[in-house]
């Protein structure tokens, strides 16, 4: 089971073009990793990926907590709302991406028209380097929100009711109850969701491959997409493997930091 993983680790120190057979694998030492540091395209995809992850993770976490908090017991039609927010998550990402390409169509797409009805010049969505990544973020937040809401709803079921009663007796208003009862009781759920959302955000590939192919002007190239380009368009398997291991390193460090900070807080 570990063979593909080990093979990519070995490849990341080699040079190989994928098509010429195993006898042409040539040892290259740290060349691939050194090459990445001076590679503008890699650096910009790294920066895009960080920007993407920071925005997507923070918006998804905050929004899903707020929505879950409200639809848990503060609204009627709870089941309908839960289903509505969960629907984007169960739909296929390829189908969703194609639909959103149509929604984002820069001259006639529904979203463009809706923005125009407010009398504002519509952004060019996927067609402009300034807005392409933001447009993809908007879509992936919409996709991922439902999953986080459902997990938060499950977490909210386990918050003991006595704590709320005790807080009420102490005269806490609903904001104080949220901050001092709900939030601490959900810390396990928050930790789990934060970890998985960060990991997922670093692995984004599908929507980018379908909607923008990393463009315009490389503005939506993220790490996994760059890795895919290196491996299967430019046939630099060694360098692509190096990117994969850098990605692994980033995810590993981020997750490790989270576990550390969690141990401290308990």
């Amino acid at each position, binding site marked *: *089971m570990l063979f593909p993983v080990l093979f990519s680790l070995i490849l990341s120190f080699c040079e190989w073009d994928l098509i010429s057979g195993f006898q042409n694998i040539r040892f290259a030492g740290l060349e691939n990793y050194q090459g990445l540091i001076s590679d503008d395209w890699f650096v910009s995809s790294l920066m895009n990926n960080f920007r993407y992850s920071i925005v997507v993770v923070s918006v998804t976490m905050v929004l899903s907590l707020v*929505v879950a908090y*409200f*639809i848990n017991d*503060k*609204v*009627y*039609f709870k089941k*309908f*709302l839960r289903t*509505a*927010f969960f*629907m*984007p998550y169960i*739909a296929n990402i390829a189908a*969703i991406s194609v*639909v*959103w390409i*149509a*929604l984002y*169509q820069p001259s*006639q*797409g*529904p979203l463009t*028209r809706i923005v125009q009805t407010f009398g504002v010049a519509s952004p060019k969505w996927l067609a402009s380097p300034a807005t392409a990544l933001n447009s993809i973020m908007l879509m992936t937040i*919409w996709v991922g*929100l*439902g999953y986080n809401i459902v997990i938060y709803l499950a977490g909210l079921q386990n918050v003991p009711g006595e704590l709320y009663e005790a807080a009420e007796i102490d005269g806490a208003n609903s904001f104080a109850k949220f901050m001092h009862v709900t939030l601490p009781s959900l810390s396990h759920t928050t930790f789990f969701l934060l970890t998985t959302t960060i990991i997922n955000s670093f692995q984004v590939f599908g929507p980018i491959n379908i909607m923008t192919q990393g463009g315009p002007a490389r503005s939506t190239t993220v790490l996994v997409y760059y890795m895919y380009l290196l491996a299967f368009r430019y046939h630099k398997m060694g360098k692509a493997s190096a990117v994969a291991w850098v990605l692994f390193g980033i995810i590993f460090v981020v997750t490790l930091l989270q576990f550390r900070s969690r141990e401290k807080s308990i």
Partner: protein
Amino acid sequence: MDTTNHVKPRPIRRFNAGKIAWTFIFCVLGIITILPFLWMLSASFKKPLEIYDFPIQWIPTEPQVSNYIKIWNNPSYPFFRFFLNSVNVAFFSVIGCLFSARQRPMPSPRLNSRGATSYS
């Protein structure tokens, strides 16, 4: 029939204005969330030129089923074949997962050595 002894105190139903307001806000958000699906559903019954009509015609003036007929009958993209491929993948991956998941965890709690859980 004497029912007086069986009448349970019913909870007082009062209309909670706050709850109604939140319901309204979140129903609007929920509907916005599923709008892309509704748009896609309505587009599937439209002619190509009508798709981008604005304001959006949620119910097409002349609903077309031709799109649905076309996907099943396109010789260069045999949809039925693709459908079977998906069924194939789904069937064998579920079978494969269930079988390997049934057998894998067996030894791990029984082996006490380091790394006993990390081989899969």
